């Protein structure tokens, strides 16, 4: 009974929770509701993934209007995978948010934080689940608008500027996406993605389709912070409250990557995008530049949050690099890196949030000698850092391994060498933390008051454990990714 309505519930539950929280107003109740709803969305996402694995693609007609006229929610192996990632990160960040928000925000604004958090979650889940191009735009804006508010909640006044910059860039990106959709709608007369894909095969006037592809690529790349469109990201991540940074870094850019995958492989078709057009060279070049330059820039940052933000830009480069490989191993690497990097970055930003709570700022001077003051936090960052580098035994290794395999399958050994080389730059910035935390004496006057509260440490360590677990047992992460790649390479969904 309720099982057949799971696709709608996935979005409706957090969407309804947001106004409820505004009505409740009390901070503890709002937090309880947010945690409950996040856990519920994880349960629904896992149930959907299991349904897809056993019964194939789920098509759900919203309001019983049959597609392609009504809005269709369409769940296949790819977006079920993304839904699980978003649900998982949300369920870990929500319990963490309590202590962190209590310390960072004035008490009368707590319920607003949870309201925006629920809206952002609903938007991200909606982007991933919908099968309608315009509905996707609406969810994109729901998640973006709530993200701007969440970033502006940061304590420093720079957070306001970061939110404003992101608002301008994000709106331009979303508008580019709508222009692309408009052109596609003019050519095909449909907004349903699956229907659009089949009708595009019969379109012979190519120029508007090419323009649409260009607009959608640029628009979505702005949202996913593909080099060189990443300038909003470091400021936004560095200034936002800690739980927001962890949530965004692990989910928002990943969901945008999903949109790109969906349009390239399911709507336009891989043959059109990568064989008839020089898109492959373009995406490949930008990805490699992102991986190398952003890693370099990360090495020279003075602030931990900003350093890991630049590292995010680099890691997104790896994901798009896997997309540009357009073969089974490369794509599996890209999709599994969505998950692995999401888990790794969530762990890192959650732990850094704990340091921010205790020391105020997270500059390298402040974290000097951290290994003695906050041993568990420091150890966690080192383990998650190893996963960021791609050390065997951690989640990051699995994705890099498949990216390298994908590059070798194409006979591009230089690309494999570049992947390994840029990982070595990651060693440099992770080492900077190790050096500061374990080998330097703490600066006088920054007497720490011990570990972060358990409410923050436990969720963060859950993510650290996930970094190791998904490096040792890949049956879930890689298995899901392989099923997703089968959908992508199998043509239309």
């Amino acid at each position, binding site marked *: 009974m309720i099982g057949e309505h799971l696709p709608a519930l996935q979005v409706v539950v957090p969407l309804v929770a947001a106004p409820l929280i505004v009505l409740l107003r009390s901070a503890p109740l709002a937090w309880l509701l947010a945690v409950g709803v996040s856990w519920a969305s994880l349960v629904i996402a896992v149930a959907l993934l299991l349904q897809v694995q056993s019964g194939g693609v789920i098509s759900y007609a919203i309001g019983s209007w049959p597609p392609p006229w009504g809005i269709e929610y369409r769940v296949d192996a790819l977006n079920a995978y993304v839904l699980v990632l978003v649900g998982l990160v949300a369920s870990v960040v929500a319990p963490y948010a309590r202590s962190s928000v209590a310390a960072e925000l004035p008490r009368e604004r707590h319920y607003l934080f949870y309201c925006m958090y629920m809206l952002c979650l609903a938007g991200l889940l909606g982007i991933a689940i919908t099968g309608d191009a315009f509905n996707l735009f609406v969810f994109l804006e729901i998640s973006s*608008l709530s993200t*701007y508010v969440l970033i502006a909640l940061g304590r420093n*006044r720079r957070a306001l500027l970061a939110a*404003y910059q992101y*608002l301008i860039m994000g*709106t*331009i990106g979303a508008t580019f996406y709508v222009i692309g959709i*408009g052109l596609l709608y*003019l050519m095909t007369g449909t907004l349903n993605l699956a229907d659009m894909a089949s009708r595009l095969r019969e379109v012979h006037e190519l120029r508007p389709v090419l323009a649409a592809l260009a607009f959608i690529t640029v628009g979505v790349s702005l949202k996913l912070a593909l080099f060189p469109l990443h300038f909003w990201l470091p400021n936004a991540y560095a200034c936002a409250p800690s739980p927001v940074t962890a949530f965004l870094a692990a989910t928002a850019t990943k969901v945008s990557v999903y949109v790109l995958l969906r349009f390239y492989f399911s709507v336009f078709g891989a043959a059109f995008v990568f064989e008839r057009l020089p898109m492959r060279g373009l995406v490949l070049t930008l990805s490699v530049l992102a991986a190398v330059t952003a890693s370099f820039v990360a090495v020279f940052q003075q602030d931990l949050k900003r350093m890991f933000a630049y590292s995010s830009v680099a890691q997104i480069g790896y994901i798009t690099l896997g997309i540009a490989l357009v073969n089974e191993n490369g794509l599996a690497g890209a999709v599994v890196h969505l998950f692995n990097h999401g888990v790794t970055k969530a762990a890192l930003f959650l732990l850094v949030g704990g340091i921010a709570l205790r020391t105020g700022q997270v500059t390298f001077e402040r974290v000097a000698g951290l290994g003695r003051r906050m041993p568990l936090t420091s150890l966690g960052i080192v383990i998650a850092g190893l996963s960021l580098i791609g050390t065997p035994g951690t989640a990051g290794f699995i994705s890099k391994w498949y990216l390298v395999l994908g590059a070798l399958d194409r006979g591009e050994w230089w690309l494999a060498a570049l992947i390994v080389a840029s990982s070595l730059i990651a060693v440099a910035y992770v080492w900077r933390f190790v050096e500061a935390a374990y080998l330097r004496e703490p600066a006088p006057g920054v007497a720490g008051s011990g570990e972060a509260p358990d409410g923050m440490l436990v969720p963060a360590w859950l993510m650290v454990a996930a970094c190791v677990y998904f490096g040792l047992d890949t049956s879930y992460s890689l298995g899901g990714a392989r099923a997703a790649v089968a959908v992508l390479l199998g043509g239309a969904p």
Partner: protein
Amino acid sequence: MNFAGHYSYWITVFLMIAGLYVVIARGNLIKKLIGLGIFQTSVYLLYIAPGKLIGGTAPIIASGFGTYSNPLPHVLILTAIVVGVATLALGLAIVVRIHEAYGSIEEDEILDRDLTGQEGR
């Protein structure tokens, strides 16, 4: 190419580029938002103009109604207008907060004050 026949597209593209130019070229945070508004509005035209057929009517299945105008773009753009209004409202709200914190809405002055650590009003 029929230049005059495509005049609605020319207006659309002009507004689109003008809006985007204002966003990039202006340092005043409010003016940037105005540019963003023009940019978004141009997209409304892009959707609505092709939906109208000269002589077309609402899609009613009855005798005497032969050519229909497509009503769907209007509905889509109604949604997009709501999104645009929300974006503009939020943008302006953030600018108000920026003005409270920095005492300026000029981008270069704000960046200056960030570097020197100077307080706003």
